[in-house]
């Protein structure tokens, strides 16, 4: 099944599955991406894989929460499998997740999360055990236990749903999760874990909480990733202290609001003030000018904070749909600027701000010579950044109908176009990366083998000159090529995360704008 029958987003997903789980999972994933809900026996025929392979692939994807199953509507004895698109896409964000957790908490939490991401889903004891093994903190896993509790408490990890009570009666089991249990960690027995670690065991075996399975909570990470963008925006608009304040307020909002709602609940001036006072990390500048900072933020046209009332010294909310509309606009502006230049940007923004514009008006107000203005307008039109609306006005029965061509920006549509292009760009960067790596696979493998060999020999205390001799088995040209490939690879990885930033903004905008 050639991948180009898929949309760009699905292609990205497919590439990710291939990359993380290998070709077989990739094939099954691609099939499900293309066909939606499918029963098991359809998949081998279409993909040419054996049923055992398909089963295994599905099991892997279910373990990682990338595929879900439901009883078919036609026959509830048959399970249908479907891809959870967002979760597959989030594979791309795993490095960001780790980095974020490391920044917020520290290394041990990062390791816990990394283990959990590798396992897909696992019990708390298991994650702690494996992390301790990795960290070689054999003696005391209880610190890791505390870290785990923190992650659960801040909702970065979440309990998997359990089998429903009536599961035995159904061929296709349904899964349920108790709302209030979602983030509660059951009692763990740390003692046995510590003992096993001392014995250098590699497997945990039976444990008390083996029934309570955890996985990563993508929604929570989405919120956090969005907040990073928002804090950066606040810091750009005012200064880093404003960013600090905004970070704090975002945290308060998150604690008091439903993550899926397009606006947060209101916070009062006094609550925010209290939080700033109580926060140990608050900088002296912020403490001194708290009121000014808050005011500058809510008076800013970017609507990072919206004032909704005066009770309690002022009531403040975050209106996600407006803020992300502004961010999406900033994103589109940046794309237009880079692709078509500053004059095109002026025309684009002018049209967006004024809603509907005639060609003449555009060039007059934008003060761009007619010829140039026309050229840019049509370029923008061609690439779908502008839309046309034709107005017909019949002045009387016999006079010819007058028609006006009006330009305007259909923001959701433009955002969708840009989003598609971003998926495609991301996919291309991934393809390019894969290509560069596979093309030079032999060389890279050789280099890696040599490096490990040298490492171990150095450990054994081989004299330096002999090591140097060994290391010369690769020519300097080869070595510099390897270095180049590595740096290119890093470049491409960075590029992908940057493309993902844009995607996150545009996706969030479309999501929130469709809610209101």
């Amino acid at each position: 099944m050639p991948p180009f029958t898929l949309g760009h987003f699905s292609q990205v997903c497919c590439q990710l599955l291939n990359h993380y789980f290998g070709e077989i999972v990739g094939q099954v994933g691609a099939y499900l991406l293309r066909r939606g809900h499918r029963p098991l026996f359809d998949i081998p025929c279409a993909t040419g894989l054996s049923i055992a392979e398909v089963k295994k692939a599905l099991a892997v994807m279910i373990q990682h929460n990338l595929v879900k199953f439901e009883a078919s509507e036609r026959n509830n004895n048959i399970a249908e499998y479907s891809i959870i698109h967002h979760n597959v896409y989030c594979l791309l964000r795993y490095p960001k997740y780790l980095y974020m957790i490391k920044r917020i908490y520290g290394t041990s939490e990062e390791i816990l999360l990394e283990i959990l991401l590798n396992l897909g889903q696992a019990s708390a004891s298991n994650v702690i055990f494996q992390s301790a093994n990795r960290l070689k903190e054999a003696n005391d896993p209880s610190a890791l236990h505390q870290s785990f509790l923190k992650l659960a408490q801040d909702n970065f990890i979440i309990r998997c749903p359990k089998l429903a009570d009536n599961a035995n009666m159904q061929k296709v089991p349904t899964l349920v999760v108790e709302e209030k249990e979602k983030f509660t960690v059951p009692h763990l027995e740390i003692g046995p874990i510590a003992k096993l670690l001392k014995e250098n065991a590699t497997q945990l075996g039976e444990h008390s909480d083996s029934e309570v399975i955890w996985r990563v909570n993508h929604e929570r990470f989405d919120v956090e990733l969005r907040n990073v963008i928002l804090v950066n925006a606040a810091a750009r608009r005012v200064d880093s202290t404003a960013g600090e304040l905004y970070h704090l307020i975002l945290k308060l909002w998150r604690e008091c609001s439903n993550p899926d709602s397009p606006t947060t609940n209101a916070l009062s001036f006094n609550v925010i003030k209290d939080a700033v006072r109580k926060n140990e990390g608050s900088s002296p500048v912020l403490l001194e000018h708290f009121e000014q900072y808050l005011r500058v933020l809510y008076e800013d046209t970017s609507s990072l904070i919206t004032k909704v009332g005066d009770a309690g010294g002022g009531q403040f909310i975050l209106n996600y749909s407006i803020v992300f509309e502004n961010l999406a606009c900033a994103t589109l502006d940046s794309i237009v600027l880079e692709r078509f230049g500053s004059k095109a940007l002026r025309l684009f923004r002018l049209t967006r701000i004024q809603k509907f514009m005639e060609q003449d008006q555009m060039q007059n107000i934008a003060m761009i010579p007619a010829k140039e203005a026309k050229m840019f307008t049509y370029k923008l039109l061609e690439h779908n950044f502008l839309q046309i609306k034709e107005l017909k006005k019949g002045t009387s029965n016999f006079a010819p109908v007058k028609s006006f061509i009006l330009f305007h920006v259909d923001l959701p549509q433009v955002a969708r176009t840009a989003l598609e292009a971003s998926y495609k760009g991301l996919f291309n960067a991934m393809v390019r990366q894969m290509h560069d790596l596979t093309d030079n696979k032999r060389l890279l493998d050789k280099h890696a083998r040599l490096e490990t060999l040298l490492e171990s020999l150095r450990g054994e205390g081989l004299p330096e000159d002999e090591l140097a001799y060994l290391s010369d088995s690769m020519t300097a040209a080869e070595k510099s090529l390897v270095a180049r490939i590595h740096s290119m690879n890093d470049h491409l990885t960075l590029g992908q995360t940057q493309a993902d930033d844009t995607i996150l903004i545009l996706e969030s905008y479309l999501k929130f704008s469709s809610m209101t």
Partner: protein
Amino acid sequence: MAAPVVIKKEKVDDPRPSASADAGEGQTEAEIERRMIELMGEFPKGINDKILETDMPNVDKKIKVAILNRLLSQEKVNIFRAAVTKELFWCLKQQPTSKLKGVDSEEKIVMRIIEEAGNKGIWNRDIRTKSSLNQTTLNKILKALEGKKLIKSVSSVSAAKKKVYMLFNLQPDRSVTGGSWYSDNEFESELVDVLNQQCYRILQQKAEGAKQKPLEGPLIVRNASFLSSKEICQIISDLKIVKFNLTVEDIETILDTLVYDGKIEMSATTDGYSDGQVKTYRTVEKLLSSAGIVRIPCGVCPVIKMCGTVGAVQPKNCVYYDQWLD
């Protein structure tokens, strides 16, 4: 067809009106009336109660109103109400042109049509359809009128080849000449660009200066980064970049382009000394330094539509990536 044309000797803004001629109601009133019209000549934008009050404090309000009403009914003055203050203003009515001596009736018709078009002017063809004269006659008439310096032709910026006609003494409208940014019907885009950058630089410097006092808090910093259009106009004029006299409106159109560039924001404040609202400006940062996607070649790629895993343009042999990765 042709309505009777009032023939008057005075020029439009001649302070000596015909009022004295038909003043039948006593010396003082005629004098007051004359003075009023004189005042209206001095204040072409119109006079209001205040002006009248200071100029002739001794005259009874009722008499003033009566005289003004009479002038109104004689269609010598116009009355209007200011948009903001809701104050009443009186001003001299633009008198229909008065130099129609020796003009025959066809010429009169054409004159009327041109006059109606005001300072926006009117195209030859439109005159023809309105007057139902044939082209040759019309051309003759237009030439004659031009020769008598009653009308003039102005070439319009919106369509360089088309000339519009208007009364000789009128100042062509901005839409015809294009305003300050046109010289000889050429749009001076370079000048606009230079001013656009200059204004931005001025505002940037102001913002930089404001940031030097971080101890006073962000609100102070923000408020100190504003400049009004008047101030900017002054600075630009002092720099002597332009040869003509820059008006505040001229600068505001330039500042508008910066607003549309997303580099500055405008806010209107009412405080200050001048009458209406003051437009003030400051630079703003964008919410993002740049969209992440434009930092990879595909984000700005001109051929992304053609690019795919098959065909001539493919990521694996893409030259943009080759350059970018180098």
